[in-house]
């Protein structure tokens, strides 16, 4: 088994944020007229990818 590396904790925020539906199931604040429920989840798409990037960098720096 490979040892645990803390940078992998970055995998989890999207799950915590979006499985907690109660935190975003509302209309306000709206963005360009789009209710919070919709734009908040859309924002998490690029955010999720940005969180993966540092893990990717760390992973590629290891020799293999």
């Amino acid at each position, binding site marked *: *088994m*490979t040892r645990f590396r803390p940078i*992998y904790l970055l*995998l*989890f925020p*999207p*799950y915590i944020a*979006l*499985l*907690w*539906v*109660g935190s975003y*199931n*509302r*209309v306000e604040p*709206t963005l*360009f*007229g*789009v*209710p919070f*429920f*919709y734009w908040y*989840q*859309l924002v*998490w*798409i*690029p955010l*999720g*990818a940005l*969180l*993966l*990037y540092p*893990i*990717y960098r760390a*992973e*590629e720096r290891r020799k*293999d």
Partner: protein
Amino acid sequence: MAHAPSTTALAVFVVLFVSVALLGFLAARWHQSGEAQISEWGLGGRRFGTLITWFLLGGDLYTAYTFIAVPAALFGLGANGFFAVPYTIFVYPIMFAVFPRLWAVARANGYVTAADFVRGRFGSSTLALAVAVTGIVATMPYIALQLVGMEVVLGGLGIHGNWPLVIAFATVAAFTYTSGLRAPAIIAVAKDILIYITVIAAIIIIPGELGGYAKIFASVAPAKLLLAPPTANNLGQGFGYATLALGSALALFLYPHAVTGLFGAGSKHVVRRNAVILPAYSLALGLIALLGTMALASGVQSMPAYAQGFKMFGANYAVPALFLQMFPSWFVGVAFAAIVVGALVPAAIMSIASANLFTRNIYREYIHPKCSPANELQVAKIAALVVLIGALCFIIGLPGAQKFAITLQLLGGIWIIQTLPSVLIGLYTRWLHPMALLAGWAAGIVAGTWMAAEKDFASSIYPLHILGVTAPCYDAISSLVLNLVVSLALSFVFNTIMGRARTDATAVGDYV
């Protein structure tokens, strides 16, 4: 002003479709090694780089049916239909963390399917057969649904009857047979250019014409704008929403077509890089989802010009109707070509993936164990044709097949997730006993199917009653929990009685 389906739209559509189909045939010669073996045809020789894999997986996972059904869900159900967005977000951390490992062990041992890995890891051809059959059965309705997506768009162009579907599928069958996985890889590039053009145009033009997003969302019934909140003894729609997103994400990369696309990658760096860049498609999907709400705001559902289409295709007609209403007719041709070409890519990959499973885990395992690589390849190519023809006959030959295909696809997600303990947990430990995994798989399939049947196959959310609280939970998640409990408990029993000595064809070094 309502545009009737015009000859301009049709002409643009036909020209684009024919050009893309030609690309599929030319693909056969691209980076061809000339070796007659299944990994050349069925995995494109495992040589695809980052960009081609990105297009291939993008075309594979975000299918034509997705582009029709996701906005249709927002159009019909409101907020509940938006679960596709967290679903696609949940997919990529899993892909990043787990799938380079599966890719590596498959490469090291020449595995072509996930069932090949299970066969090697646990030394059980029965468990591998269960994984293979689940994969094939879950994929078939998915292929049929691509035809449904095509039918809706062709209906929007004013083309009815079966012959256009037959032509489209004959094209897929022909280039799949000749070019294998290279065909959808090349076509995916063309398809995505069309899709991105359509999405960007739609997002720029339509909200403006409808008077902005505030007005668009004002057209949604207040009860559908958000999820029903929890009450004292019910966790509410949010729980169903979250489990649906999570379960769908866990299931996605167990589908054979996803595994095939992944195994075609040239290195595990390609797999990792794609987990980082594939969310670009999710963004497109999220924006496409909002088209459903725009369709609602545009009022197409009450316009006589589209009454016939809505009558035939229901909410699935929302996006075609919106495009016909909002776009100039030549651009309708572009947008509809994007969707139909978008159906060719996954249909080709899904048929290849099913063919790989049949050939490796049924034909070679049980029918002709000593077959030559050339023979194996020939069987796979014919199996792909049979799968495509089967899907076509199913959709055009069986009345009500469309509804049946949707039901089967709903069940497919519940079934395929039952292979998770064998495939994904199997990547990390071989402590689980193959017979225990088989029992867990069977328990999960029976329980999941039963829950869906209780809801008359209309919904995959089943209310669980736990300590006086009602939790509306996606069947795939609750049945997977049962599967895991059975697999763990029986593994403990079997390992205690029979010991842990089992054959494992994979070595520790294969996984990194």
